[in-house]
């Protein structure tokens, strides 16, 4: 995986005129701040995929990485439930072929392979840069709780672990985090830790406009940001 610093990643994206970081770049920045993500590798060839598959762990996901492709599934750029080295080889081969057929001319960074996270409780951690208050982090439960109920809470940087725990307990549906229908309670401390780190990520990187960790999957112990989106400010936009 890339070992570039957040600064280098961001400068490179800006110099290439990209305002949304690529998956592996976003993961890399999250990891830099200690936000857990699936272990991921960016491979260029089917052979590389075969070599790294065991190390990443199964089941695997493979996804095309390209600044020019927004809807990856539509161009055959996503494969799920890959369970062996050979399957990894074939999946990446197929993805590269699909993309060159259906999105000719798209810039291809490679294919990201990462281990699918085991099921757990899906939550959302989002970070924005508010005009008045600066870096601000949102927390909510995934799915209808955010989409329909808009059941979310906010805190402004600097955020302490206590603030973050308070914001987790503040949402109306917080009882779900304590376990329901035989589900174990989830690790609120791990979520609070991700919230604090997300606020820091925003505070220390002025060029970042927003971060969406959606979903973060929470377990009885630990939590992992499965999808990380980092959006940069458009140059010239004043705040």
């Amino acid at each position: 995986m890339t070992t570039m610093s957040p600064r280098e990643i961001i400068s490179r994206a800006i110099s290439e005129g990209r305002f949304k970081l690529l998956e592996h770049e976003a993961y890399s920045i999250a990891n830099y701040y200690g936000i857990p993500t699936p272990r991921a590798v960016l491979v260029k060839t089917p052979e590389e995929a075969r070599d790294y598959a065991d190390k990443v762990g199964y089941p695997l996901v493979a996804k095309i990485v390209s600044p020019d492709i927004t809807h990856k599934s539509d161009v055959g750029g996503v494969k799920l439930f890959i369970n062996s080295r050979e399957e990894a080889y074939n999946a990446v081969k197929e993805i590269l072929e699909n993309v060159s057929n259906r999105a000719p001319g798209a810039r291809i960074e490679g294919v990201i392979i990462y281990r699918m996270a085991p099921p757990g409780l899906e939550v959302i951690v989002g970070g924005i840069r508010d005009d008045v208050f600066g870096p601000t982090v949102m927390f909510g439960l995934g799915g209808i709780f955010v989409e329909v109920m808009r059941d979310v809470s906010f805190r402004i940087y600097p955020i302490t672990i206590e603030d973050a725990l308070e914001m987790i307990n503040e949402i109306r549906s917080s009882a779900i985090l304590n376990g329901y229908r035989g589900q174990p309670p989830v690790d609120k401390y791990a979520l609070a830790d991700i919230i604090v780190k997300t606020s820091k990520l925003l505070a220390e990187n002025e060029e970042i406009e927003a971060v969406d960790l959606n979903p973060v999957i929470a377990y009885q112990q630990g939590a992992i940001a499965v999808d990380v989106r980092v959006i940069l400010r458009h140059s010239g936009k004043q705040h």
Partner: protein
Amino acid sequence: MVSLSKFFNPQSVAIIGATPKEGKVGRAILENFIAKFKGRIYPVNPNYDEILGLKCYRKIRDIPEPPDLAVIAIPAPSVPEALIELGEKGNRAVVIISGGFRETGTKEGAELEDRIVKIAREYGMRIIGPNCIGIFDNWSGVDTFFTTKMRKPPKGHVAFISQSGAFATALMDWMAYHGIGVSRAISYGNKVDVDDVDLLEFLGDDDKTRVILMYIEGLKPSRGRLFIEVAKKVSMKKPIVVYKAGKTGRGSRAAASHTAALAGDYSVYKAAFKQAGIIEVDSFDEMMDVVRVFLDQPLMKGDRVYIVTDAGGVGVMLTDALTSVGFEVPLTPPDLREKLRSMLPPHCIVDNPIDLTGDTDDERYVRVLEVLSKRSDVDAIVVVALPQVPGIKGVFVDYIAKIKEESGKPVLALTIGSEYSIETSKKLQERGVTVFESPERLARALKALRTYSLYISRHLK
């Protein structure tokens, strides 16, 4: 930075645009100062040698000293020149009442505003306004509230920062009517310089102010972090009560991300208030209820509320209201139950709400309150005193007040009714017992006190 004290405690004031003409802003302001301000007053107007018995200066440079404070009430186009003259004179604190700047939405207005900001920076002047009603200070007599058809509230300890001038005026009038004392009120209009953050900091250190009330529509961009920082410090010294207007958010925010789409303006403000220990209120009623409770009541150390009532029904209403905002109305523990049993007639109910029933006299209240006030498992007491029952003579009023002083616990009262009730209520309020008519409003106001108390105890280290 020049401290704001020159605005609130000046030794001298120049009123640019003072006039003897009835119905003019410059006349109303001059009259305000003549009535209450103890320092030196310098009316400035090129057309007069004397106004309302005071020597009038034709030019700012003719004033015999640099005035601590200047109030400008002249047409907008003449303001920049007046500012320069004031700057040259050595004045560093200006309230610009005049409108006609950025609020007009015109290019000329905006340019004029930019010019005055530039001039103020050059001279290191602080500005309140423009387009504002400025300052009403009950202790120093600085009063630029030029609205004449209003009463001014008595001297007291509530400070008010308002983004709306008209609301500030109306609230002062309302507080005057309800006898709630005010320390200082400020409305900053276009706030080109002095803003919520500066004022909060000043009022935080002001020993005449015990509760700070704010009406906010929006803070200036990028001032949010400092606002939280300052409010955190001030909250530890005195409660800040905020009414945030414009809660419905701006639909126009470009939704750069999922989170941004969900945020809107208000959710972030709400978070800010919480983090800073600010008590947010949702209505005008709640705003004034909470202010009254903060003025008179000590901090509340726990969630357990005991109710002493002469009306069973109101006791139940209160129990519902209190529990629905998160309070406990605990069952009377065995030792207390035994004690109350031994001192009350058998038909009285000793379970909380403790019901002294309709044949009660003052004496019963006094004895029960005596017992409750000394217990460490009682965090607040609400006395329901419906005055319609024949046995009550009213002497318990003094007693309730005394218990409140001595116990160090919040003691509130509830009365419902006409003249008798209002009379009881007045007497109690005068002695620092906050009185409500509505059980629900009492519960919410007490909840604000509890929220603030919790914030303080969590942050006292």
